[in-house]
């Protein structure tokens, strides 16, 4: 059975790219404008890369592919990620 996890499970891969925790960031879907914690996104990991989708409309929000030499990060599906300055 194929199923999704949630944005929490992307924390490790994203910590290689960002110095702040992205799972607690607020993400806005560029497709349907649903806005909420990145941790609540649906994460598909049984795939060639990580794919986070909007829990409202299933649109792709973020993709991460790690190759032996580089990491590809696609954020096209996000209008923004909101991270507190504190």
């Amino acid at each position, binding site marked *: 059975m*194929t199923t999704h996890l949630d944005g929490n499970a992307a924390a490790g891969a994203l910590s290689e790219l960002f110095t702040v925790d992205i799972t607690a960031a607020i993400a806005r879907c560029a497709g349907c404008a649903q806005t909420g914690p990145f941790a609540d996104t649906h994460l*598909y990991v*049984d*795939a*060639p890369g990580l794919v986070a*989708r909007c829990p409202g409309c299933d649109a*792709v929000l973020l993709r991460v592919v790690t190759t032996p030499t*580089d990491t590809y990060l696609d954020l096209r599906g996000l209008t923004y990620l909101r991270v507190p300055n504190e």
Partner: protein
Amino acid sequence: MGIVSPGFAGRRREGTNLPPGQYLTHDFPVLSAGPTPHIRTEHWEFTVTTETGEVRKWDWAALLALPAEEITKDIHCVTRWSKLETSWKGVSLDTVLADVETGADFALAHSYGGYTTNLPLDDLLDGQAWIAYEYDGEPLDPEHGGPARLLVPHLYFWKSAKWVRGLVLSDTEDLGFWETAGYHEYGDPWREQRYAGD
């Protein structure tokens, strides 16, 4: 960098006739980058759009009316599993595209659910590619791409788009879902073309 984990072998790698870096699996892993679309065959449609904008359509009955073939092929997933002698039933793309007028070099396959993957048109012809709708004698399960998926077994299996709904033919190569995120534009498992630049 990194270490070797003492006593860890990982999935067994047996058999010598596998492409480099692949291991053999006997089950059929389900990989998916999104929710599984459940497409009823009465709503299913397959569309070919040529580089001049000409559109050809097949519904489920029209697909089944085309001569079908039994196909037995090895398949190779870029996540490193290979499965030998998988058996399918489907329609050759030579048959599907027989009456399509095109001089295009490339195809972008589109799926229900939004997935895409790009292939040279030549790799879809000459008995190399099918629209498959049965696996192991049973209707293709939605988790494995049913009602119908592309089957292009000589390339990494991400090219064999699940839930296929059409091809857009073009003179220029548009990259698909994984090809725009670091995966190889062609994906020959025997040359281990996993990532862009391999």
